[in-house]
């Protein structure tokens, strides 16, 4: 099963931050491929969602960037910043709590039905 874009959208920031937190530096395509590999194709990040998020993270100072010139192409590498690392921890705690609440909420619902 491939998860819907709606489900992924709310957690995309956390996913990207965590990946950058665990890796030295990454570029857009690499991020999408890594997520695909790690989840066995179940989570596929769309370009339409990834780049706006990366730009927002950059603007917020959560990631720093470095440009590599390759002929007519430019590759932008993203590295997590110090504030990004703190944010990652916050986001992860939030997401874990959210998942626990959801499990509880949905379990409860199935019991009552």
């Amino acid at each position, binding site marked *: 099963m491939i998860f819907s874009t709606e489900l992924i959208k709310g957690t995309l920031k956390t996913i990207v931050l965590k990946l950058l937190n665990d890796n030295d530096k990454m*570029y*857009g*395509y690499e991020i*999408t491929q890594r997520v695909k590999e790690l989840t066995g194709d179940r989570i596929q990040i*769309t*370009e*339409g*969602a990834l*780049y*706006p*998020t*990366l*730009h*927002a993270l950059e*603007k*917020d100072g959560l990631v720093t960037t470095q440009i590599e010139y*390759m*002929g*007519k*192409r*430019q*590759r*932008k590498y993203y590295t997590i910043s110090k504030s990004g690392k703190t944010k990652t921890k916050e986001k992860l705690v939030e997401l874990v709590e959210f998942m626990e609440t959801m499990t509880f909420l949905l379990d409860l619902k199935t019991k009552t039905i």
Partner: protein
Amino acid sequence: MYCISDEQVEYIFNDIRRHGVEMEDLQYNLLDHICCIIEHNLEDGDDFESFYQQTIRQFYKNELKEIEEETINLLTFKNYYAMKKLMIISGASAAIILLIGSLFKLAHWPGAGVLFVTGMVLFSLIFLPLLFVLKTKEAGSARDKVVLTTGTLVGILYCLSALFLVMHWPGARIMQFSTLILSFFVLLPLYFFNGIRKPEARLNTIITTIILVGVLGVQFLMTPVHKSSEPQQATVKEVKK
């Protein structure tokens, strides 16, 4: 791994721009991304152009530009709360200043003029434009945006004409008259025909339109169309949007 040529890179780059993506940063991001996909998935001898067209099509729902719109949305979202705060502060202080100004004017105390000018400028040039920007973000269709734009223009013009009238500045009458014309012949039809299409807003639209016609009629009655030597009656009202 497919080896992508400089001409092909340029072709992709131009195509991204042709699709309306204007942010340079995003152009290069997308360019590199597409190049990577092509390099990893295209076999030698495969048709580059058709593969590229298939790939780019997966990037968006309606048009490629939406990636840029989403980026801008995310980038400006941070200012959203600050703008909202400023809107509320400017609106509230404008209302208070105008109220105090009216009191000063009634009592013939000095400083009424300054208070009026400050209040009106704050209201029409800060509060209303901010309200417009924030409302257009929520507006769904292009038609809603047109109605909002005209509404804001009329609102600003109305406030300024009231200010000009009270301050006895030149051009007040023309301004007042053009506000009425614009409201009646442009804003009202736009508002009516836009609202009547939506089943959930139909009744409200009809009622508001009737009220607006009435208010505009009264306003028109109070507008001196012919030149007279009598001093103009000044009325200050805020447009309730």
